[in-house]
């Protein structure tokens, strides 16, 4: 292991070490004072964030080309670390309130973040698989954390079974890709394809299976069946973490594998991606209309959002648009992370230990009782629809730019029309909050308030001054090649 190897993987190594130590340290933290563990995990995430930010603009390859450090991975690493921080902030009081406070939560969360960061850096299919497992297994446990609630157990088991299934697809896909090219390294695959040594049909089959596997992770239709149940059953902070982090990690892997390793298959893959994207947008948005439970509604909304991000991914094979499309996907992932965390935060504020407070009807009267909370939720809903002045609009415009530049006009039309449909169910929450009477019981707590407030402010302010984030996302991509 050379110094360069170490440098390329420094944030991942550091955080993994920190997580392992945290697992030990937690043994000495007395029960009922798990706030210390939370604080330590947040500290670890912050230090890692510092390291990642310091690596900004650097690029390197480590471990014989198995991992890469570039703008793409740095951007995503920062996003994952932010996801982790928000996951901690939302969980701290929630776990106590729901009486499921366990120190392991924080360690598991850190391990999962490590997996996500490794995923963004993986430039070898074996590392991709390693990262996938590292990020998923802690999530299975976290989903079932609210044991002995049956919902939560069901969520854990369901997520585990389907996740294992998806991992199987990925492994089989990797095996086929190896069979087709004789290598698992992305750069070597490109070389093999270029030299004509690769068995293209076999490689295509492998790529298809990998796509299926990650389709599960990002919750794209038709691989979305687990999403509503798992999102509903898992403790809400875990759901928030999963919806933002696991989805982004799935996209990170897809973007790197397909854009970097398999550009040769773009012609065939594009057709598949168009269908996946359109189906996700249609099914996600239409089924969300029928939901009465806010967690299920947001789950279907996250399926739809996966469709929107896939939309940017569609023209990846067109060299003129590729950078734009990856930048758009990254930007939208960031926008979605910020917005969805805010929305989940509001869900947590209304959720009660006995599982009440999760119906959309329970939001009636929030505008009067808790004007600030309701205003924040309104901002998140507007952002998910894609209306000004929020980040969601800017993100969608970025996505549509990629799609239109790529020439996929029908897909763009599907995108905007489904946005219109989504307006209906997102606005229903707003209608409940402001236009119907009720007396919702709300938990106000410092970190939760801070998270919700910060997300609301960021969603609006960054939408008014998006240039730096645009710039960052676009440079994150240049370094990929």
């Amino acid at each position: 292991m050379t110094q360069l190897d170490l440098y390329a993987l420094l944030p991942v190594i550091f955080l993994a070490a920190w997580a392992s130590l945290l697992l030990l340290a937690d043994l000495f933290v007395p029960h009922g004072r798990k706030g210390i563990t939370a604080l330590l995990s947040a500290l670890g995430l912050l230090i890692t964030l510092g390291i990642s930010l310091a690596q900004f603009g650097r690029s390197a390859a480590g471990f014989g080309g198995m991992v890469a450090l570039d703008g793409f991975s740095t951007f995503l690493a920062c996003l994952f670390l932010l996801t982790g921080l928000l996951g901690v902030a939302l969980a701290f009081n929630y776990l106590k309130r729901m009486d499921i406070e366990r120190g392991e939560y924080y360690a598991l969360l850190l391990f999962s973040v490590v997996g996500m960061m490794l995923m963004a850096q993986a430039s070898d299919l074996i590392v991709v698989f390693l990262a996938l497992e590292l990020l998923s297994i802690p999530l299975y446990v976290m989903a079932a954390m609210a044991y002995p609630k049956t919902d939560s157990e069901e969520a854990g088991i369901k997520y585990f079974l389907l996740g294992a299934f998806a991992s199987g697809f990925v492994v089989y896909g990797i095996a086929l890709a190896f069979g087709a090219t004789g290598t698992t390294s992305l750069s070597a695959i490109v070389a093999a394809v270029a030299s004509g040594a690769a068995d293209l049909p076999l490689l295509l089959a492998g790529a298809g299976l990998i796509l299926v596997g990650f389709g599960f992770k990002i919750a794209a239709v038709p691989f979305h069946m687990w999403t509503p149940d798992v999102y509903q059953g898992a403790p809400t902070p875990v759901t928030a973490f999963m919806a933002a982090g696991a989805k982004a990690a799935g996209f990170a892997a897809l973007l790197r594998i397909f854009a970097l390793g398999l550009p040769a298959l773009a012609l065939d893959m594009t057709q598949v991606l168009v269908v996946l994207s359109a189906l996700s947008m249609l099914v996600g948005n239409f089924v969300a209309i029928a939901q009465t439970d806010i967690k299920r509604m947001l789950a279907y909304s996250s399926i739809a959002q996966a469709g929107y991000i896939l939309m940017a991914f569609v023209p990846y094979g067109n060299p003129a648009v590729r950078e734009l499309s990856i930048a758009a996907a990254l930007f939208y992932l960031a926008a979605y992370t910020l917005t969805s965390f805010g929305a989940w935060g509001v869900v947590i504020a209304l959720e009660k230990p006995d599982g009440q407070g999760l119906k959309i009807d329970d939001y009636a009267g929030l505008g009067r009782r808790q004007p600030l909370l309701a205003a924040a939720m309104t901002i998140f809903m507007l952002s998910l629809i894609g209306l000004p002045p929020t980040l969601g609009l800017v993100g969608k415009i970025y996505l549509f730019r990629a799609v239109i530049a790529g020439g996929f006009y029908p897909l763009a039309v599907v995108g905007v029309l489904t946005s219109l449909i989504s307006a209906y169910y997102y606005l229903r929450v707003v209608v409940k909050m402001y236009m119907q009477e009720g007396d919702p019981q709300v938990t106000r707590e410092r970190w939760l308030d801070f998270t919700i407030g910060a997300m609301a402010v960021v969603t609006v302010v960054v939408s008014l001054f998006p240039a730096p984030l645009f710039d960052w996302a676009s440079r994150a991509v240049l370094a990929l090649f």
Partner: protein
Amino acid sequence: MDFLLQPLSIVTFFPLLGVLVLLFLKSEQKDALRWTALATSLVTFVISIWVFFFSGQYDIAAPGLQLVAKYDWISVAGWDIRYYLAADGLSILLILLTTFLTPIAILSTWTAVQERVKDFMLFFLLLEVGMTGVFVAQDLFLFYIFWEFTLVPMYFLIGIWGGPRRLYAAIKFFLYTMAGSILMLLAIIWLGINTGTFSTPDIIGKVPAAAQMLLFVAFAAAFAIKVPMWPLHSWLPDAHVEAPTAGSVILAGVLLKMGTYGFLRFNLPLFPEAAIQAAPVMGALAVVGIIYGAAVSLAQRDVKKLVAYSSVSHLGFVMLGLFAMNSIGIQGAILQMINHGLSTGALFLLVGIIYEQTHTRELSEYGGLWKITPLFGTITLIVALSSMGLPGLNGFVGEFTILLGAWGAGEGVYGSVWFAALSAIGVILAAIYMLYMFQKMFLGPAGEVTRHHQLRDLNWREIATLLPLLVFIFWIGLYPKPFFDLMAPSVDQLVAVLSAAMP
């Protein structure tokens, strides 16, 4: 941050100062809240007047965009989005209409809105920012942001303070208008990619003729729903009827004009070839709208619905004038936008005043009001006459000019003078339904409501809301030249672009 201190930036964003103040007031201080909102909107109006007429920075005789406020907003990663505000003869009157109607609408809510006054005023001032922004934005991206943003406060105004079916009306309003504008969004992005800029003045003349028709349709979808043109009007009666009075005033007075303004600012100059091809269709739809709106008004028993449908008819005139594509037609159309804002705004105010006392809008329950409330009756009569186009009042000038323009276009884009001839039927129908309304409410024997309510005549506050409108109703009717002078240079410039594209 220099660009934020430019005159138009100040006009646009000044209401935000009022919003800030409102945030620090308590919900119980209703009068303070009302006064703050009113004062803010009045100051905004004064600033707008000053900027255009007394600052010496706006030259009425110049045709181009003036009072430019520019800033490279997002110029990274291949984007070229600017903060770009400017005004010219096409927009000056609409900007002034917005700043003029807002304080009037706020004043009309003094006693009508008692619930959640703070939220109401917040949304109202935010709405003003959005509306003014729509009329001053010259960058398509910025325009779209303002355009969509106006939906949000209006949605709340209808949904919280509206009538019994407010939820339905609010969501219908929202989804309908959003349906049109998202297609426009795709067209805007296409333009941004293919012309390299989002600034409207730079795009003029750059759009390839082959692509124009699709873009025209995408933009027209957004604007035609907003106008609303027949057959896309069905959101309008619901929204109008359920909206609170002030909401209706702004909806009719300004929001609908955003649609016609969109045609004027974007569809005509950006896609002139397509606009010329589409003109016969647009003209025909406009004529259908004129007659349909008027005919349906005739059948209404609810006075607010009657006024709402009359908007469909009046806006049809505006569209007819715009797509006549000659100077006189377009000038008439712009003037008619203002006229409609004044007359229909006043009608909604009047309906609101009586509704506040009786809580019914059924024509059949009224009757004989004039005897009890003479001043109210007289003003209603003047406004009704203005709305039906009596010579000497503003409506006549607008409709007459539009008909002249449409007639003149007979040889050109429409290819037939029938457009003008048929739409004249609308004028006749307007006289019938307006007089019918007046007769039912004010003349004849006292009706159910009139007998059982202790009705009062207008108070000073109500007179203060109506008087400014009446002044302009007479002014435009008797001496419209200053208004035409404001728009003529810019309209001539636009017509030059259009005639260059004529086959």
